[in-house]
């Protein structure tokens, strides 16, 4: 029972990166970007993809410079023991926020759409139990699940494509009317793209590190394209005014179809997307448990238990949707900018120290 294994293949690394980002963001992203960038929201989404690619690229180079040691080891060598400890705590807090946002958002969507009769706390607790079972086996199992669930991502992409010729291109024109607003909307996409920080922790576990950068970028690109396509389709179908009014534009889009057996795509979409959410949560919780086991010097498996208990508590606080979006608006920019600064700084320092020889521990 208490065994875990962290080795993953390069393919699995790619799918974990891809999966770590498909969160609640995919549902509300279109609304957020359309508020600022109007019909050009999809361009902001696409440009916002700079964040995951930036993080993945720099991370890979950092680890290459430092000979693929584990995260803590690298931090210790670059910043010394105390700062390494502080950074680990920061990342633990970051992942705690991330998973709580995703879990509470997931709960809100479920109680909003198909399972109105369930108490949100039941959903939170059951999801946490599932996550515990997933992460308890270590990263290998998460990697395998990610790989398997990638096939579901393809289906997830196919559902919006049903609407591809039902929209109207006039809703997307003119393509660019205001560059300023497009740039202003980019930070709004960061919540949807956050979660990619996990690459800082999992790169050392990849068995074959030869083309790991390409894998990371491929994984990010899949998500960026998925996001952009869904935003384009939503805007072209609903127009930007309606899109920005809706809480979950993508959910509105999928429930607009008229089908013979189920009345619309919504339950199917929730089913597929729910699996992705479990995966995203598992990746986030792995990050939490992994950092926590370093902070409190305890075994990984026990930390998994603490982690799951902690997110039950934190996500219960964020239950009504307006509560959650308020906290996101306050917290998210700080987290993202700190991560960008941290990655950049570590990148520069690791570049300077790259001449020193480190053995892989």
């Amino acid at each position, binding site marked *: 029972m208490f065994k875990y294994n962290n080795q993953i293949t390069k393919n699995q690394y790619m799918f974990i990166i891809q999966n770590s980002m498909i969160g609640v963001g995919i549902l509300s992203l279109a609304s957020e970007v359309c508020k600022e960038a109007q019909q050009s929201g999809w361009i902001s989404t696409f440009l916002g993809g700079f964040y995951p690619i930036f993080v993945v690229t720099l991370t890979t180079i950092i680890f290459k410079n430092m000979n693929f040691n584990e995260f803590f080891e690298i931090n210790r060598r670059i910043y010394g023991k105390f700062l390494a400890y502080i950074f680990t705590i920061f990342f633990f807090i970051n992942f705690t926020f991330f998973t709580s946002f995703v879990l509470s958002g997931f709960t809100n969507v479920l109680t909003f759409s*198909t399972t109105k009769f369930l108490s949100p706390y039941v959903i939170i607790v059951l999801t946490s139990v*599932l996550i515990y079972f997933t992460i308890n*086996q270590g990263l290998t199992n998460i990697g395998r699940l990610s790989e*398997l669930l990638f*096939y579901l991502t393809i289906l997830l992409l196919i559902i919006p494509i049903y609407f591809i010729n039902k929209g109207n291109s006039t809703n997307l024109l003119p393509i660019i009317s205001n560059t300023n607003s497009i740039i202003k909307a980019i930070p709004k996409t960061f919540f949807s793209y956050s979660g990619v920080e996990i690459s800082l922790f999992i790169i050392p576990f990849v068995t074959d590190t030869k083309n790991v950068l390409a894998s990371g970028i491929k994984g990010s690109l899949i998500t960026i394209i998925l996001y952009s396509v869904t935003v384009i389709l939503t805007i072209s179908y609903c127009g930007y005014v309606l899109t920005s009014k809706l809480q979950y534009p993508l959910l509105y889009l999928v429930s607009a179809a008229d089908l013979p057996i189920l009345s619309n795509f919504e339950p199917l979409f929730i089913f597929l997307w729910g*699996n992705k959410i479990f995966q995203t949560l598992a990746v986030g919780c792995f990050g939490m448990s992994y950092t926590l086991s370093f902070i409190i010097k305890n075994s990984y498996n026990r930390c998994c238990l603490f982690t799951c208990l902690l997110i039950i508590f934190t996500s219960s606080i964020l239950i009504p949707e307006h509560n959650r979006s308020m906290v996101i608006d306050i917290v998210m920019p700080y987290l993202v900018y700190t991560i960008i600064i941290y990655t950049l700084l570590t990148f520069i320092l690791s570049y300077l120290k790259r001449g020193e020889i480190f053995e892989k521990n």
Partner: protein
Amino acid sequence: MIEKLTKNIYSNLDVISANVPSNLNFIKREIIFKEHKCYILFISGIADKNVIEETIIKPLLTIKNHIKSENLLDDMPKKYIFSSDINVTNSIPDICYELLNGKTVILVENYDTALVCNTINDNYRQIQESTNEKSIYGLRESFTENLNLNLTILQRKVKNPNLKFERYIVGDKIKTELVLAYIDGIIDPLVLTNIKSKITNINAPALISTGFLEQFLDYRHYNIFPLTKSTERPDKVVFDLLEGKAAIFIAESPTVLILPATFLEFFQGFEDYSERTIIANFSRIMRFIAIITIMILEPIYLVLLIYNPELFPYKLMSLIISSRQNIPLPPLLEILAMDVAVEILREGGIRLPNPVGTTLAIVGGIVIGESATKAGLVSYVTLFIVAITVISTFIIPNYQMALTIRFIRFPMLILGQMFGFFGLLIGFYFSLIQLTKLETFGVPYFSPATPFRFSDIIDSIIRLPLNKILVEPKSLKPSKKSPKN
């Protein structure tokens, strides 16, 4: 217990008798050969009496007794006994074990070794066509209870010098003979080591059939997914050996265990390879649709009935509501009742003789369904859903996996009843976790889908033309890391 024979033939005889079932059919035939007292020991029935009389007793009694011989026990097999397979041993446990296998033991006065002649009675069931695994184009022969004959059948088909047989004896109370067959060079050494260590670590009183062996090879006692396949048909064994798997034969059992088995191959019929590519793919896709139907059709129907009726399209909804008027049972009980009735019918059908069983299943199904709907206990739509589900279970080629998949829908029904769509979601994800975490003898259970290998995935849910797929699957070779990954 005394382990070795002594020079005293009476004490030897006593020790052996004490360790052999003291039945009427344990025969101690005493003869005098060259003025030495000899005992011929065998268990009649297991050993072939005619063979013993012809090859052992007749030559020993008819030759002239006066020629001197230096070493009787040395001369006996060389000059007098006609039997083709003779061993010399002095270990009493060995002797007792061989007696129980049907061999004949010759004890000679003043010698502390004994001769063991092969006189096993080969009167077993003849080779017949498999009744459990029918095929249209495949071979007509199937394995029998005779271990040696089974090995012969296999050897006749695999004319490869690297085909290896390894013999193991397991069981504390009843010793059972296992034979591990594999083709050296094709099977992955890591998998082979895993299998061997699992077999030597089996701690069981007895192994009666392959089903026992399968469970003793898996340390996860509550795992519901089969990690090995069993088959009666030699052609399947040959095919799997060529893919790099191993087969375990058990003495006195007509089924053979093939291992390791990954999840996806349970849904591949052996006939798929004999049919044209597109036709084979069609039946494979039908099979996967059937699996999804079995697992989630009833739960989804239940969830829509009790929690999300608005998801039915308008026309379907009025149909369903009108069919459910005045039905006293709640939906869950209604579905469960029909399911249980069907399971009982099917279980009953298995135990009955073949033609009667089929009749029972059909007539019983029609009568129960018709009377339940007529009486207004069950709605027509529910009956239809249950019937579709049950018929879909027949399409899964492997019986063990069919049982597992059939079982999964009951927890799914209960989860659906309690949590609606969210219940189905967690049920599905939980089974995925269970599946991905399993490994069969070092091979990930969900390979080749994860870890992903393109060269193998083309023969999973669909299959490409034979010339592309008849290569040794890489996913069964965990010790060799492919250069891509």
